[in-house]
């Protein structure tokens, strides 16, 4: 009897603390889009339906256990069937399920409606970064994690946005419907930003569609949600949602930068310029596999510092960066990096960490190589 009350009190306290648990961040986020709010309220409705069912079912069970217990001389009834009761307990769950399916279907339909988008962004997953392309706008860039590996290894204090920060965030306007076209260069990744309630697999050879319409400016963070290899945990997503005017200005600025970069291909670059640029490209694109000082992590990711083949054969070195190594982890960077970036990172890796070849690779040479 006493145990019974302790259990019941425990259950009541548990139930009473639910709202607190929901408010404390244990629950899914409400998010900043119409869809994310609808998904959140669906989640809460279904949650409370489950709570109600649980209370009724366990209430009846515990009441029966208590009221008709053996010590009070209860005798079990012995009958084979009761069609009415069976019909009721079959029909009630059926109605509950249909009742839940109706609003869920309405939301699903909205989620799949990618028509009438004002901006198209192509999202390409790569081991281990994201590439964003603003279709028809001549703006494209790669977004890599910017958390230093020293923090990962515990040699430095972890920052506020540890593993959730990137060098080039995806920039989107608020109040505009943005369509995402998602695919992958290598294996299946998944682009997931909880605040938008967007979570979509990116699959090589397929283009998946999704969309969002953000209500509030801000910085929203997400992660790759499909185990994609060694650095799956190191390819976060950061979205910078801006006011529409700010976004338009940003887009123009990026387009001008890209034009200037394209003009820079033809001129002769100084070694110092290329080295400076190359160091940045290396940190953003190469270091996650080949490590900070080119030591690699053999046998999968070979060392670059002191790599004899690299030192002896500049043409092979450039070819590996442009076309990748088939059957190995090295991806092709032909479409990910521009000629200036490829030239810079090649120059950097040929001259950093004791690789003192003195070789300078000009962007124009790379452009020639790319044109073939």
């Amino acid at each position, binding site marked *: 009897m006493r145990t019974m009350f302790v259990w019941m009190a425990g259950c009541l306290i548990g139930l009473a603390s639910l709202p607190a648990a929901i408010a404390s961040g244990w629950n899914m986020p409400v998010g900043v889009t119409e869809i994310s709010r609808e998904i959140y309220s669906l989640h809460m409705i279904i949650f409370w339906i489950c709570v109600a069912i649980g209370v009724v079912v366990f209430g009846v069970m515990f009441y029966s256990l208590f009221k008709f217990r053996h010590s009070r001389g209860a005798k079990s009834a012995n009958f084979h*069937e009761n*069609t009415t009761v069976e019909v009721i307990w079959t029909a009630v769950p059926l109605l509950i399920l249909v009742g839940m399916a109706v609003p869920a279907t309405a939301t699903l339909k909205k989620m799949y409606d990618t028509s009438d988008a004002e901006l198209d962004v192509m999202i390409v997953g790569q081991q281990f970064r994201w590439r964003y392309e603003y279709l028809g706008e001549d703006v494209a860039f790669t977004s890599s994690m910017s958390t230093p590996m020293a923090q990962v290894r515990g040699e430095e204090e972890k920052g506020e946005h540890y593993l959730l920060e990137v060098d080039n965030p995806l920039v989107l306007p608020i109040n505009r419907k943005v369509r995402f076209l998602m695919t992958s260069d290598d294996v299946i990744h998944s682009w997931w930003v909880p605040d938008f309630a967007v979570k979509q697999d990116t699959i090589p050879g397929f283009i998946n569609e999704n969309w969002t319409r953000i209500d509030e400016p801000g910085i929203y963070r997400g992660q790759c949600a499909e185990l994609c290899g060694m650095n799956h945990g190191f390819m976060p997503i950061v979205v910078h949602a801006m006011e529409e005017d700010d976004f338009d200005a940003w887009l123009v600025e990026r387009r001008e930068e890209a034009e200037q970069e394209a003009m820079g291909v033809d001129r002769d670059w100084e070694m110092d310029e290329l080295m400076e640029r190359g160091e940045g490209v290396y940190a953003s694109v190469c270091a996650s596999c080949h490590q900070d000082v080119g030591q690699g992590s053999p046998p999968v990711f070979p060392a670059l510092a002191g790599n004899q083949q690299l030192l002896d054969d500049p043409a092979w070195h450039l070819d590996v960066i442009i076309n990748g190594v088939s059957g190995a982890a090295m991806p092709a960077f032909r479409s990910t990096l521009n000629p200036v970036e490829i030239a810079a990172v090649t120059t950097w890796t040929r001259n950093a960490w004791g690789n003192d070849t003195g070789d300078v690779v000009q962007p124009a040479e790379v452009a020639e190589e790319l044109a073939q």
Partner: protein
Amino acid sequence: MWGVIKSVLAAFFGVQKEQRRREDFEQGKPLAFIVVGLVMGLLFVVGVAAVAITVAR
């Protein structure tokens, strides 16, 4: 015939009276249940598809 349909419906729902079950097993012909079951199964599939198509439109 009506009796067979009612029994197949009961089977779809998952609840049947013991008395009717006994009658079916004593008097019913297996072939009738199989044919009616297949036809109604098909109708059910077509019905679900129709609902899905209407809703998705």
